[in-house]
């Protein structure tokens, strides 16, 4: 009974935490200057300098000033972030966006790293667990004195007697 109430407590706690995180993430940028800063870091300067629009400052850039003005005008006109990004992509090409979009083939760019990482993590955990289960079997095997002796000899020869602790 006590265990059940403890589990319920932890579940409710996790739900509250998830809700708080979701609320935090769902909140949008609130004012024009923070939106300008945010969008300026999601767009590239198209002059070929390979810098973010919000950070492009190289001497004599012919594009960034005009593009920043376009961005300010679009924010002032009340366009949404998606509309602004879409209009820049339509006008200057997909390379004007600093990161792949989250739909179509571009979505693969976002999913693949996490999918690969999750698969590798899961695989590693399963592998270690499988090895752990079989540890009794491993322990039952006779140690290989020849290999141990060889390793000891190598340690002596290379002066690495006590450096393996790290």
């Amino acid at each position, binding site marked *: 009974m006590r265990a059940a109430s403890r589990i319920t407590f932890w579940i409710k706690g996790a739900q509250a935490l998830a809700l708080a995180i979701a609320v935090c993430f769902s909140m949008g940028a609130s004012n024009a200057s923070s939106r300008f800063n945010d969008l300026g870091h999601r767009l590239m300067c198209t002059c070929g300098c390979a810098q973010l629009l919000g950070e492009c*400052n190289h001497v004599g850039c012919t594009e960034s000033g005009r593009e920043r003005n376009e961005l300010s005008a679009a924010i002032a006109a009340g366009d949404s972030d998606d509309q602004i990004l879409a209009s820049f992509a339509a006008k200057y090409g*997909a390379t004007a966006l600093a*990161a792949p979009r989250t739909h179509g083939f571009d979505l693969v760019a*976002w999913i693949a790293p996490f999918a690969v990482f999750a698969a590798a993590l899961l695989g590693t955990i399963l592998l270690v667990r499988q*090895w752990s289960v079989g540890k009794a079997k*491993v322990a039952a095997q006779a140690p290989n004195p020849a290999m141990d002796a060889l390793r000891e000899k190598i340690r002596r020869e290379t002066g690495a007697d*006590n450096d393996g*602790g790290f």
Partner: protein
Amino acid sequence: MAAFGSFALLIALALAAYNLFAGTIALRMLATGQPARISPERLADTARRAGIAGFIAVSGAAFALVWSVFNNDFSITYIMEHSNRALPAPYKFAALWSGQEGSLLLWAWLLAAYGFVLRLTHKTDVKLYAYAGTILAAVQVFFLAVINFAAPPFSLLKGAIPDDGNGLNPLLQYPEMVIHPPMLYLGYVGFTIPFAFALGALMMRYPGEKWIKITRGWTMVTWLFLTMGIFLGMHWAYAVLGWGGYWGWDPVENASFMPWLTGTAFLHSVMMQERKGMMKSWNVWLIFSTFMLSILGTLLTRGGLVSSVHAFAQSSIGDWFMVFLVIVLAVCIFTYILQRSHLKSEQRLESLVSRESSFLFNNLVLLAACFVILWGTLFPILSEYVQGSKVTVGPPFYNRVAIPIGLFLVFLTGVGPLLPWRATSLRAIRRNFVIPSIALWSTVIVCLAVGVRPWKDGSFDAGNFYALVAFAISVGVFTAILSEFLRGAGVISRQTHRNLFAATYLLIRRNTRRYGGYIIHIGVVIVVVGLAGAAFNRSEERELALHDKLPIGPYTLECVGFTQDSNLNYNSEYALLDVYRDGKKQFQITPEKRVYLASQQPQTMVAIHSVPGWDLYVVYEGTNPDTGQPIIKAFLNPLVSWIWAGVVFMVFGTFVALVPSLTPATAALRIPATQPAPSEPALGGGH
């Protein structure tokens, strides 16, 4: 000199080819035991001597190029394109690696230099060194073939010889550019040595792990060079490019970071092989991957596959590198399949919560980070292939994907050393983790209290959130490492009645590798704190007439004048800005803009005033063409100096790890004779 240089390169190619073929035949004869007119040992020795002579030949070619630069020999196309008469001497030297052909020559020279040392020290293990030397010769043949036939540095200019050259790219005319590329190349090229040993050991079914111990020094030195090269590049970008940052996730930056990640993974996982005879296949593939990523990075940036502000001009050498990469991969796969039975692990992991597992997860995360960067770098090519149009994969992608992985890695940096080998108990976990956990959560509370909160103006702020997590984890990890030092030093102090500092010194000397590694981890933590500071960067840009003011953070900049200067190399304009804090003048700062005469290219020279808390970073952006007023952009970048301080710790830690540990016998001699004999087990051999 051009003819001498070209001839020297041809001789070097011939010697490398002889080294490769004679070495291969000798090793084959040794393996099969076939009788021949010449003994295989003698043949292998002639191959080794050819390798040594090859170094002299490549050195001759490198000398010829440097000589030509210093003597303004503009009949050589490379010199005409990358130097001019007024170029200061250190930058003339740097012209050696400022272009495609010269930098490949530097690569070949460094490779020959590494090979020279390897071949001179062959008596450590004659047969293994013969294998490694022959594999190294194969790599040398490739690079020398590229230099001789695809990107010759001594090709002569067609038509009339100009009186002066085009000059060096202004971006490269900065002191760090004299040392950053050689450091980076020493790192890239250096990974060829552990690669050659690993492949050679696998080919000859080398018994045991001695090859790893032999190459440990090579790998660590190489890793150190790559680390220094990367951070010098970051500092150069910060001080020269003028955008206020130091890392832009540019493909060239990524190309240097990927082998660093796999090399770091290798340095950690080899310890598993040395101690437990585990992860043999994994280690072999890690070092293969590190070498191939070095070549892939070169292919990406020199072959024009991806666009980058750093990339060399597009050329046909990309095809050469592609073919070479395919051959290397094929050789690695073939050798591995043929010899994989030799790489069976002698032991297995026993627990999910153990030092071994932490190494495994550390490797996993490092490789995940490497994959993310490789994926992001190659995705534009993939997208163009699939959709027909390129996309940009810039900082927003990496910040969202790579930062969480990086923070997890830093977390593991703290967790790993606290876990014992084999398995651990819940009690041991509680004992080891309680203080770092308290430190971590205390940091969270303090950060929230002082305003580092993951929300701003009612909205979630990812930058602040990551900064908060980074600060908390960093303090937790630092505490964990510090507790390891204190625990060990405490035991020695009790054993030997030394004070804590002397005991710490002895502790480090007894196991330099382990505690050097911890010092490197402290450096990483300090770097992470510095990187987290970027979340709080702020900037102000304004046209400043005389006596106009620009407030930023605690400072106020007042324009007190503008001045001009010129020399044979460039004309420059300075802004003279007095910096006030709390109404008192603190210092003067002078951001500069130069126009280089030979190339007529402009260049900003950032003025930076650095204190531990922040950098005041001021850029003179030029004048507004409409108003004629100078434009000043000022940044206040918190904690940047921590990044450079962290690197110093990393370098120091690497040097410590390279110093041989005191053997138990020597260590015992250092205990004063009047002290009682140690009653506790000696430290340094792990938990």
